[in-house]
């Protein structure tokens, strides 16, 4: 279940939980709508607009198509919750089968007061068990934006979940894009 993600930096190093023969290190950079992946000195350019997830139905909120429109800049209105336990975020996608995927996401989140907002990115092999791959919390009242990427081989579906840390105080989040490339 190799998983690795990277911080919201211009260039992000990506490693693997299990070593893949011939692949020591690869980096991923984001520029505009293009992701540049470098593996063993070979450079590949991935256009988010051509991700395998583009046009897929949003399994969390079918009417929120912006998360799979192939554009890293588009998003929608904030989804909010007062729930103290995780509830589905505004976006999720089922790729249909377990395969090797490079997943890149961009998400915004904040808290409407000074409590904590927790947001997590989950992956599932079977739509019944969901594993957190990334999580962040913030008590900022202005939008925080995170990006991350993973290479995974054990999952078929990906989605956001979020919750608030204090009853009666809303957590807010919105997805800009979940780009899934079948590798």
């Amino acid at each position, binding site marked *: *279940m190799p*998983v690795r993600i990277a911080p919201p930096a211009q260039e992000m190093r990506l490693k693997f939980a*299990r070593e893949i023969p011939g692949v020591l290190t690869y980096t991923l950079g984001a520029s505009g709508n293009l992701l540049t992946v470098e593996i063993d000195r070979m450079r590949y350019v991935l256009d988010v607009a051509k991700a395998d997830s583009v046009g897929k139905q949003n399994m969390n909120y079918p009417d929120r198509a912006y998360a799979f429109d192939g554009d890293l800049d588009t998003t929608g209105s904030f989804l909010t919750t007062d729930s103290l336990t995780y509830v589905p975020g505004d976006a999720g996608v089922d790729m249909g089968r377990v395969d090797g995927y490079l997943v890149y996401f961009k998400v915004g989140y904040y808290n409407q007061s000074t409590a904590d907002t927790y947001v*997590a990115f989950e992956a599932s092999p079977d739509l019944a068990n*969901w*594993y*957190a*791959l990334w999580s962040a919390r913030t008590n900022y009242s202005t939008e925080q934006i995170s990006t991350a990427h993973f290479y995974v081989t054990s999952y078929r579906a990906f989605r956001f979940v979020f919750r608030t840390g204090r009853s009666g105080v809303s957590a807010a989040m919105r997805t800009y894009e979940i780009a899934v490339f079948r590798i």
Partner: protein
Amino acid sequence: MSMPRYRVRVEKFVRDGETHIFPIPPPGVTEYYVVGYYDDEAEIEVGARETEIEMLRRELEDLKRRVSELEKAVMPRATA
């Protein structure tokens, strides 16, 4: 900048018939990435902000130590 890794326990909870598996990060960690799951444990890397904070703390400690050393060096002259 390499990010610190931790082997941590995971918690599982069921909601609406789905099982969620989450690592339990060390206290104070606000962002983490999962490197892999191993039964009831997960290996995580903490976020860039924590790493940056840790680096700044070390720099601050280094600066404090240098200031202290300089103060000690200056003091004898000032009192001479």
